[in-house]
């Protein structure tokens, strides 16, 4: 057996791993990428929205051949009660721009495309190859990996871990703790096929325009979580996810929630007559900044979901994954050019660079949100109900004068959550948001 040596080994071929492998290979580094799935994307699950900015910084002309579904021109935010929803929609023709800002994508196709770019750039990709452990030298420095292919080993100056949310390699090596049930969400998703024209008529679209619906409220039965509906060219992605510890405490099942979400009268007509072709589930790291592990050490760096890089409030993850992958790779290239060791001290540059990007700034901004939402269930049950009730009182014309209606609405809020509770919630939310 020939002992293979590389400049870098990337574990995982998701957005973060691909971003890292591509960036390093393009700069001429010898890169080995290991993916346990049958092909890149076979294990990956996302809504999925592609944020152009993060990818543009890696592959500026990606629009030329990437498999994109629809560019998003409309965002709907729904606060849902049983049988009703209060919505805020933003739609703008400005989003019909030459270089659109967001796209819906199908990850199985997109990841294969991205991986093709990585291989074109010169990286060696091995699929169906699971990394079983990190290899270290006597000083504890990571020097390579062992795989499940007959225990075969590979060596490199750095191992970049883009192994995803439940990254067992890093956990086994003691680089980060096991996931805690209250810092990770379980999301389930279905793909529903419908003819193009039907989707365009139902969602008020033309051409490749797309809509994103994000929903919260009683659909999660009091648990911390959200639902979503995304339009693809000939299918609709619909899903819902909640924090894992909430599922264990409640009697709800993920598929039960999704079934109820699909049957909601605001949703059911959108899916009418569709054919469900795919059912997937995945974990999402939603612990935020406070749950982030150590991001680098002697001979290793963590990128993407494995580093908890998800902005749960804004439903962003893949852009953080790509950005951390790119920044990690740029750091490695920079250190190698300067002929510096890829030691823990030198790799601190990775975190310094991340601090200057939106990634760390957003992670820090929302650091208190996960625990706020987790310990204040009124945000998912009571307030959506009150809001919906208020809207009904306000819009129903029934001979009651408007001042009386105002009083009824105000009283409903006070009855639901005493004045101190209301003020307290507003205060807590404002403080966490800051």
């Amino acid at each position, binding site marked *: *057996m020939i002992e*293979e040596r590389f400049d870098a080994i990337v574990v995982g071929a998701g957005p973060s791993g691909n971003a890292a492998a591509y960036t390093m290979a393009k700069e001429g580094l010898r890169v080995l990428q290991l993916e346990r799935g049958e092909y890149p994307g076979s294990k990956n699950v996302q809504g999925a929205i592609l944020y152009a900015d993060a990818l543009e910084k890696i592959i500026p002309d990606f629009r030329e051949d990437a498999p994109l579904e629809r560019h998003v021109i409309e965002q709907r935010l729904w606060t849902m009660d049983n049988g009703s929803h209060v919505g805020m929609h933003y739609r703008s023709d400005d989003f019909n721009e030459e270089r659109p800002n967001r796209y819906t994508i199908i990850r199985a*196709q997109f990841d294969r495309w991205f991986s093709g770019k990585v291989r074109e750039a010169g990286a060696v990709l*091995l699929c169906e190859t699971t990394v079983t452990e990190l290899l270290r030298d006597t000083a504890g420095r990571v020097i390579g990996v062992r795989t499940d*292919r*007959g225990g*075969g080993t590979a060596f490199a100056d750095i191992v970049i871990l883009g192994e995803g949310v439940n990254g067992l390699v890093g956990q086994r090596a003691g680089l980060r703790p096991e996931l805690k049930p209250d810092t990770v969400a379980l999301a389930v998703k279905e793909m529903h096929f419908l003819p193009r024209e039907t989707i365009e008529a139902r969602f008020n679209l033309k051409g490749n325009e797309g809509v994103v619906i994000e929903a919260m409220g009683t659909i999660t039965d009091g648990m911390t979580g959200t639902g979503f509906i995304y339009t693809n060219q000939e299918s609709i992605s619909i899903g819902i996810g909640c924090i894992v510890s909430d599922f264990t405490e409640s009697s709800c099942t993920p598929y039960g929630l999704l079934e109820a979400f699909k049957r909601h009268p605001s949703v059911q007509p959108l899916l009418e007559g569709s054919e469900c*072709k795919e059912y997937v589930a995945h974990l999402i790291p939603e612990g935020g900044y406070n749950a982030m592990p150590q991001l680098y050490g002697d001979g290793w760096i963590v990128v993407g979901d494995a580093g908890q890089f998800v902005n749960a409030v804004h439903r962003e993850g893949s852009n953080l994954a790509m950005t951390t992958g790119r920044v990690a790779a740029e750091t490695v290239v920079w250190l190698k050019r300067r002929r510096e060791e890829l030691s823990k001290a030198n790799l601190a540059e990775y975190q310094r660079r991340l601090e200057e990007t939106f990634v760390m700034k957003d992670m820090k901004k929302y650091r208190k949100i996960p625990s706020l939402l987790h310990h204040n269930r009124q945000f998912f049950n009571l307030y959506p109900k009150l809001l919906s009730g208020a809207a009904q009182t306000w819009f129903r014309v029934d001979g009651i004068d408007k001042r009386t209606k105002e009083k009824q609405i105000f009283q409903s809020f006070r009855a639901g959550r005493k004045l101190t509770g209301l003020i307290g919630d507003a205060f807590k939310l404002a403080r966490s948001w800051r």
Partner: protein
Amino acid sequence: MHIVVCLKQVPDSAQIRVHPVTNTIMRQGVPTIINPYDLFALEEALRLRDRLGGEVTVLTMGPLMAEDSLRKALTFGADRAVLLTDRSFAGSDTLATSYALSMALTKIGQEFGGPPIVFTGKQTIDGDTAQVGPGIAKRLGLNQLTYVARICDLDPQAGTISVERRAEGGVQVLETRMPVLITMLEGTNEMRRGSLDDAYRAARSQIVKWSAADAGITELAKCGLKGSPTIVKKVFAPQARAEKVQHIASSDLSTDALAANVMAAIFQKQPALEGDLLRFAAGQ
């Protein structure tokens, strides 16, 4: 010993949809796999190579994307891959396919050494004809051993091979002289996991790509749609069953309670079943 395995890239039948109007298979977006029967042929070839030495060449005919399947075969441990690809092959039936493959096999023999054994799977999962293997054997004058369950003995010096062949009503033990064409039955072995070195080699290998001309094919009238006498008169999709998936819940989440609810739902659909099961359990 040089062994050639013919394999085909097919759509993953578990994920195929039939177009509601034209009744044709909608291949778009459907993942492709190596025809599962061909994997038994490949593994058998790899085992013979490991035992007797030599090389395994995999051969396929198809569009450029069939390269994925060949690369996968290299990952399993094949030594060389040849892709026969040309627009003039489009629309080939089994007659035209066996012609093109037999020409490529002749060329492989010239370039890399004549194979005493050519393997195929017993049939493909998309065409299900089981004709291409025997077609190749006939064209190249190879002895053919179809539906082979086991290779009992192989004597490279004497050039003989004996196999077990699954036949209606029993198992035949056949012996013949090489060169042979063997179509391998399913369930005869289990595909190995290639080593890390195999994976490297597969990732870095250049796949040999031959056009019709490269393979020495001059009679294009024997290829593709022109060379295919088979005419598809009508395609129809079987009526889909009306039953839909039913989610069965129970108030408490114990598996016993769920199982009881599932059983109740089944018995409701098939009232006779409960009595049958009870009688069976009582030993009647």
